[in-house]
């Protein structure tokens, strides 16, 4: 593939107009309009995300909920939304702008801050990618149990197999949480007792836990913490006061805020290293009109997090929650299993297995595309950051480049 050189192409789109005073007013109005539209679009799009959840709740068909809040498909919509907003943001910021304003207050501080947040978000994207891999791993374990328990009649062999897989699954889900609050990386030698799951029969799996390293030790450094990262991203995130000359401080603030929101949501939903304290920080001020749907989502998700954090959870992703619930229940069933299973019990189990099967299918179908989307997000952020840096460099006179 021949190398292509895009360096000039983007910058050619920028028109730096320093001398066109006559058209200033018209353009100024146009710019204001663009800003207004941007805000409105952000509000609208996030409203849709919020309402997804609300309509589903009223119809009581949760099992068939297309985009239940925090489900895989909802996340796909969330990331889509973010990418749309990002495109518009870039258009507002860069095209047809007098880029000299980038080197003056307040943008000279706000933009580098925003770009810094972007870099942190990139790290989170990487962690999320690994997190999704982990979830995939869980769904494969769940699939073993589904396959085993779908067989008829339900016999001990199948039940034991399912139990073994489910115990491995549940321990793995818990291992991450426990580990994250202790030294990461020593998991290989750790033996986990599964006493709280009931009697550990002879076929249950002390060996498995010993060597299960589902931690993130291979992926991130020991000191990296998702929640600290989010916290760092939300420092300096202050709503601009009105009356600022370029009018660009507001879209930058909006974009930064929704970036932090998206990252925060992802970290809460998908297993990530070190999430303690996630619920505590980052709240958008309530007086911002554009932010209402985002704040609504924040509230809901924040509440969920608080509830689940106490019990300990692998992540708020709906599919993970279902697995946690159903797997525990099935393990209980397995512990108390006696052949033959009564009809009522069989039906109950069949229902749960079907639910689990459904979730596995959703994960099989949805996690791959979600990972790709996260990757796309990564790329987009990298590209935008490079473009903005380029413009800033060109415009701000390089005073410090003493090369030698």
């Amino acid at each position, binding site marked *: 593939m021949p190398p292509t050189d895009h360096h*000039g192409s983007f910058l050619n789109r920028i028109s*730096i107009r320093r001398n066109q005073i006559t058209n200033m007013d018209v353009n100024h109005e146009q710019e204001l309009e663009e800003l207004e539209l941007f805000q409105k679009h952000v509000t609208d799009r996030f409203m849709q995300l919020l309402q997804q959840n609300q309509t589903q709740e009223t119809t009581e068909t949760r099992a068939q909920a297309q985009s239940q809040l925090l489900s895989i498909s909802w996340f796909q919509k969330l990331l889509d939304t973010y990418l749309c907003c990002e495109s518009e943001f870039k258009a507002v910021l860069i095209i047809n702008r007098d880029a000299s304003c980038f080197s003056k207050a307040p943008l000279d501080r706000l933009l580098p801050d925003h770009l810094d947040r972007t870099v942190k978000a990139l790290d989170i994207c990487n962690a999320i990618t690994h997190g999704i891999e982990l979830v995939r791993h869980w769904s494969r374990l769940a699939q073993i149990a589904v396959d085993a328990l779908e067989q008829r009649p339900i016999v001990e062999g199948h039940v034991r197999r399912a139990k073994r897989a489910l115990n491995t699954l549940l321990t793995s889900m818990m291992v991450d949480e426990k580990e994250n609050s202790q030294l990461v990386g020593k998991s290989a030698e750790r033996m986990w007792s599964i006493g709280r799951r009931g009697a550990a029969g002879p076929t249950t799996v002390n060996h498995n836990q010993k060597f299960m390293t589902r931690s993130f030790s291979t992926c991130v450094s020991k000191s990296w913490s998702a929640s600290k990262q989010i916290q760092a991203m939300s420092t300096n995130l202050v709503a601009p006061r009105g009356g600022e000359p370029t009018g660009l401080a507001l879209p930058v603030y909006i974009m930064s805020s929704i970036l932090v929101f998206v990252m925060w949501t992802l970290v809460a939903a998908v297993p990530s290293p070190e999430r303690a304290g996630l619920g505590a920080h980052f709240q958008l001020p309530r007086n911002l009109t554009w932010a209402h749907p985002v704040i609504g989502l924040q509230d809901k998700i924040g509440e969920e997090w608080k509830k689940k954090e106490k019990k300990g959870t692998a992540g708020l992703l709906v599919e993970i929650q279902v697995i946690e619930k159903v797997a525990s229940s099935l393990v209980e069933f397995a512990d108390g299993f006696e052949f033959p299973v009564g009809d009522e019990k069989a039906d109950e189990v069949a229902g749960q297995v079907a639910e689990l099967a459904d979730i596995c299918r959703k994960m099989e179908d949805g996690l791959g595309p979600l990972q790709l989307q996260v990757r796309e997000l990564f790329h987009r952020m990298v590209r935008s950051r490079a473009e903005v840096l380029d413009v800033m460099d060109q415009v701000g006179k390089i005073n410090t480049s003493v*090369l030698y």
Partner: protein
Amino acid sequence: MGSPETDRITPLEQAEQIILRWDSSKPHMIFNSDNRHDIDNYLSAVDLIQQSTNGKIAENNGQSTKVNTLVQIAMARLEDEFRNILISHTTLEFDSVNLLTESDEDSVNSNGSRISRNICEFDVIPKDHINDLRLIAKRMMMSGYFRECVQVYGGVRKIKLDTIFKKLGVEKLSLDDVQRLDWESLNAKISKYIKAVKICVRILFASKKRLCVQIFENLGYEGDEDAGDVCFMETVKSAAISLFDFAEAISISSRSPEKLFKIVDLHDTFIDLLPDIEDVFCSKSSESIRVQASEISSRLAEAARGMLYEFENSVLREPSRVLVPGGTIHPLTRYVMNYITLISNYKQTLGELIVSKPVTDSRYSDDLTMPDMDFGDHEGQSPLALHLIWIIVILQFNLDGKSKHYKDNALAYLFFMNNVHYIVQKVKGSPELREMIGDSFLKELTAKITQASTRYQRATWVGVLYCLRDEGLHATGSFSSGVPRNALRERFKSFNAMFEEVHKMQTLWSIPDTQLREEIQISISEKVIPAYRSFLGRFRTHIENGKHPEYYIKYSVEDLETAVLDFFEGCAVSQLSRRRSL
């Protein structure tokens, strides 16, 4: 063999007993014993049980239930055995990696040319044990327990990868961290990484792949994927992604020119590795890894381009106004020339990456002036060469601007001359650079040197030589009332003063290049000495006939000749000596 009791039970019942004997609660491992007999027995038992499940599944009776349970017990046991073999026999790998770290560099780092398929593989697990693993895997797959098998395999092998990564120095830095590192540290890390990534792809991953193939070959498929591929991906996917993260972080880091060559090194590494990566990660499920690797290469290429442009910008805008004393070589000149010499050494890769001509029109500025450059007379030269020429052009432009800060015009010209001369010397000193720059441009540069030298000389010496001019000193009439003596005396005085002044100042000036210095000194001599000699010859008697001739004729021709040799020493020389060697 066997007690009378065992003779009375069926083979199937015998098998049941064996399996029940070895349920998961037993801490010993079957496959650990040297007793092959035990192993064979167990495997046969498993086979028997498996066979007996065929056709019995539909039957809802106690027998089939029992068989199912036995299968599960056996599978659980085999899972543990499988894990145990893997754990006990994967120590070899790591030491071999150490050994290869040194020699690997030479074999994979061939300058410029691409080594295809330099994949080394080496045995990680002894053949016997691989065989055992195969035996186990086969049974697990036949009973539909492949997923469990994959989980165990992946679980164990991942740990090893982590340890090896650490030893290879693959650090887990976040993107954020990388952006904040200073260049020296980052440079070192990149060097280490380049070695490590080659080892990881060509040796580590390749041998892991090979092992998976050895164990799972021809054992079947999982969905539409080969069993070996599935296991392999289970083991390395996360690690591969993490491995590439560092390169990714580098590719998005800030574009400062000093990083250019390291980035190109890293880019070349990835380009070289791409065929190997395609080889090792050839399955459908590993597409994302291949894509990531190729994306990284592109991004590194873009980063390299960006850095070159950044460099050009910096050279143009380099703002320092600090005057180098004595008009000597400016650090900027040295830096730039070293930089582009290095670029010419990297011309193979950079030549491929840089495909567009330099941007020579002013993009942003009404107030920032830029040199004019028409590349019309440079048809047929590669874009990279054009960039190098452009860089020299803007370097000169910058130097010209800097020279104007000297209060003394003569010094400004000298400074310019020195620096352009340095540029020319550097170009001549590097065959690659010279070839790219081209001789016609070199001629242009040389002409500039001459021009600057002429300007310098004119600026300094016109005034001095003016003192030695003829007009106004013609003898009119008879001997005694001929040449106006006062005027003559004034002339000598001015000449002396001016020459002394020039001597005082310009000995402090510098022409670092010896040959150039001599040339200029000779050129000065050629102008000044004959003029002085002839002046002296014509008018000395008039002075000597008057009072205090020594006030006026202070220097002999030889004195001046010696004095000229003091010029451009770059340091103070003792005051002009005078000798009455007349």
